[in-house]
């Protein structure tokens, strides 16, 4: 009798609720897991706990009134989203941007990309149980935030990029601080390499874990470092160059296996490539205006639509603006990279161990308010 009970109990599937308040869900994500012992049988991410109605807000305010929203969608790449929106509207309306402004915007965006990857780095290792890198990466990140704070006035949610350029010019203090930061990071890369990349525990926890193959990535629309770790070298800065990326020399790092270790290595290399981009941009920084002179106060783009894609820290992000000729957009849809990146977990998590699910969730680098918009 007792044996029968035990056998029946072991055939039952156990439902576990992960989140929405959990230390490693990176925001308010809830994953409903069905477990068979320690193995995940089915994973169902539930999102929407951070839905704030950005797309509806986009439809009832003017283009420049939507600028604060852009930074708050993916707050870790706030400058990149801000930059992308400004580029989209400039293309829609037809505003010429001075050269100096383009270079300044590229420098600010790449600094933001490095700070986003640094934060991911620190929190990923915190999830895996290593407390030390978190303190180091946040310290490095504070240097970047100081640099961006000195010129835009904000640490996290910027409205620095405006239609036609930027709000204020960068001065020699900014350039000195940036160069000092780049110099500081040169020694930091070796420190991180020795502390983390060659750490045997880290390698065991990430090698072969959470493999996303190319076909799965294509089915779900995965982009960004997750896709590049599978071996597809697709980067919007190369395929649809905007601003001055076609004049700058940088590599697009790719992996081969698509596991968590490859995703980590791709992001690590991307940070170094971003440092290279900033270095070149500072070399070639021209003089001139930092904002276009004759930008109309009330923008009324011609009727039509625009789908503008740019590379955020998490992948291909795009603004789809439909204009009816009036001052407000008719439709403002944002295609976010984390949507596909999280969606792929429906097929990646089943078959893995529960303890590995934290490692996988951390390695795909999602920001939930970006998905929830």
């Amino acid at each position, binding site marked *: 009798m007792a044996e029968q009970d035990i056998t029946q109990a072991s055939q039952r599937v156990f439902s576990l609720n992960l989140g929405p308040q959990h230390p490693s869900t990176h925001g308010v994500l809830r994953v409903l897991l069905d477990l068979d012992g320690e193995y995940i049988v089915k994973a169902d991410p539930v*999102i*929407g706990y951070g*839905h704030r*109605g950005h*797309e*509806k807000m986009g*439809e*009832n305010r003017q283009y420049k009134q939507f600028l604060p929203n852009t930074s708050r969608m993916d707050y870790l790449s706030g400058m990149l989203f801000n930059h992308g929106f400004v580029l989209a509207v400039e*293309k829609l309306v037809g505003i010429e941007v001075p050269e100096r402004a383009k270079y300044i915007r590229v420098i600010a965006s790449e600094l933001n990309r490095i700070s986003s990857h640094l934060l991911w780095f620190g929190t990923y290792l915190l999830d895996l149980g290593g407390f030390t890198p978190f303190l180091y990466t946040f310290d490095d990140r504070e240097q970047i935030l100081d640099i961006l704070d000195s010129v835009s006035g904000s640490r996290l949610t910027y409205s620095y990029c405006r239609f036609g350029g930027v709000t204020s010019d960068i001065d020699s203090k900014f350039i000195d601080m940036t160069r000092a930061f780049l110099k500081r990071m040169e020694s930091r890369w070796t420190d991180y390499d020795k502390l983390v990349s060659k750490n045997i525990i880290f390698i065991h926890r990430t090698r072969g874990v959470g493999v996303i193959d190319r076909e799965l*990535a*294509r*089915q*779900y*629309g995965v982009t960004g470092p997750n896709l590049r770790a599978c071996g*597809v*070298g*697709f980067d919007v800065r*190369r*395929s*649809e160059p905007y601003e001055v990326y076609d004049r700058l020399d940088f590599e697009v790092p790719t992996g081969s296996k698509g596991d968590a270790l490859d995703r980590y290595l791709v992001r690590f290399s991307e940070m170094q490539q971003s440092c290279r981009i900033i270095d070149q941009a500072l070399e070639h920084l021209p003089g001139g205006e930092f904002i276009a002179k004759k930008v109309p106060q009330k923008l009324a783009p011609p*009727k*039509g*639509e*625009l*789908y*503008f*894609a740019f590379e955020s820290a998490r992948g*291909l992000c*795009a603004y*789809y603006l*439909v*204009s*009816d*000729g*009036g001052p*407000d957009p*008719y*439709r403002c*849809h944002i*295609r976010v990279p984390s*949507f*596909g990146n999280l*969606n*792929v977990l*429906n*097929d990646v998590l089943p078959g893995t161990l529960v303890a590995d699910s934290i490692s996988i969730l951390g390695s795909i680098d999602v920001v939930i308010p970006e998905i*929830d*918009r």
Partner: protein
Amino acid sequence: MKAKEMERVMLLMFPDAPLERDETGLTGAQWSIIVPASSIRDAAKAFDGAGFFLESLTALDFEDTFELVYHFNYYEPGSRVVVRAPCGHDQVPPSICDVYRGAIWLEREVHDFFGIKFSGNPDMRPLLLPEDADYHPLRKTFGKVSAYHKRKMIYG
């Protein structure tokens, strides 16, 4: 170029469908075609066979019709194409979730925001709104909107 090949494929599949090429590059896509909502699955299968990925799926609300907008892209420069499917306010278009697995969530989001049901999608629960939500926020008849037009006012 992948986009050019798919243009030929689409014109073979839908010989009467209006296809607009974008020579200036100002819309972000190479060309845009309007197909009937009932043949969306055939179009999606053609793109899947050619190796494209579904970049985005969204909808537009006009006075006379909804319009589903599918963006497909390939991993090469200059390969983004738009497939549009007009869909009446009470029509139920077919789902493409067996062609592209990622479409399950995308269609759930469109259903959340616009109320468009997709037949064949196994999961039509709300994605972003609360589970008991019975409103569809992005419809122009909900909440504060600044404009509600017919389709030809914008696209001619």
